């Protein structure tokens, strides 16, 4: 796993102007392509959305859904309720799931079947373990 990708910084590099919003397909495409270049062949990636004010459906589709074509596990940090608003329906539409990381706690977001598959992958790779309360937590490195 490589260091978290600072999505806000990638956005700033991808569009002219100091925008904090991930909107429009061309922007989503530009951001994703930069992230893909940084990821090379990684199968697990962490993206930090801190500083991103708004993400629309088009960008959620271009970035999150399309990255999941090459990445098996996508951990998202700094996710707000507003981000979820766009990401969740996109995941539903594609039958995909991502992992939301808050501190050491993990939440898998997506339709049940895809979410379960991601859970199993996390545990298999010893990236996460189930807590006594039944939730998922990052394994101590």
């Amino acid at each position: 796993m490589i260091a978290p990708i600072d999505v806000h910084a990638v956005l700033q590099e991808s569009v002219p102007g100091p925008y904090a919003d991930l909107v429009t397909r061309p922007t989503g495409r530009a951001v994703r392509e930069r992230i893909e270049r940084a990821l090379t062949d990684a199968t697990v990636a962490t993206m930090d959305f801190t500083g991103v004010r708004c993400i629309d459906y088009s960008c959620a589709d271009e970035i999150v859904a399309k990255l999941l074509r090459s990445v098996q596990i996508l951990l998202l940090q700094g996710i707000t309720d507003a981000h979820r608003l766009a990401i969740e329906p996109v995941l539903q539409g594609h039958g995909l799931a991502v992992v939301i990381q808050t501190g050491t706690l993990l939440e898998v977001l997506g339709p049940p079947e895809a979410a379960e598959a991601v859970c199993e992958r996390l545990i298999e790779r010893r990236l996460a373990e189930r807590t006594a309360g039944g939730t998922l937590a990052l394994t101590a490195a």
Partner: protein
Amino acid sequence: MTRLVDVPQQFDDRSFEQFASSFAQGAAGGERLLFDAHATEWASPYGFVALLVAGQAVQGAGRERPLLTIPANPRVLSYWTRAGFFQQAQALFEIHGKVPKIKPAEESDVLLPVTAVRAAEDVHQVVSHIQQRATAILTSQLGIDPKATVGFAMALSEACQNIVEHAGTGGWVAVQRYEWKRRLSKKVVVIAVGDAGVGFRHTLEPTQSKRFGDRWGDGAALEAALIQGTSRFRDPGRGQGLKGIRSYLSRWDGKIAIRSGSARIAIAPSWDDDAPLTEGLSAFPGSQVLLIIPEQGTGTS
């Protein structure tokens, strides 16, 4: 010879058909068009955008630059100027009358002056602007949860992107807050987005016309896009934009209406009596999207 196109006295989505009919008749002939707004007393964002779309269509058809007589009422004229209408109109119309020199939109009711949308960069600017201007109004005056104001920006972004992605030409967006005393007894925020592009039917025809068979037309295309979430792309990630707008409006008891070609579709909440689908209207260029979000929590009249 000039041909008169009447601009309604109260120009909004409800009087739009009167304008569309007058425009269709005018556009059918070869004469120069004169858009007559001298008696207009009020225009909503939908009216502003519709007028610009008509001007754009005339320009796109390679016809002589149309004339536009400005409202005679100085108060109305001042408002049109503050709403940013003339800044956009001057490229499309030969304007008759003296437009006051006022900077557009520093007042709170104009959340977004009439703004051109041609590329993704414009959508970024619109979304950025609206989040800085609208949050306070949406939360304090409309009672929308502060967290949900980002959803408002998302809806606006998706509506504008329809122009960039599908219209094949530029368009406009405008957002305004109103006190709807007679119609609803509430404050509302109205978003209007329009273009003189190819319209929904043309966009969806290659992938959807066979599925609809004889029913295929402007109405079926609107139904496919808005109700079924169909996109011209086969990618399952496409078509999420309108679905997302619907979901946001449903959460906040809002309304969406789209007019394209000769049809109009609406998903109206209980406070509105708009028809779900109207076909056989006067042909009008491109697409016009109307979003209305009412004040929350005080009951509807």
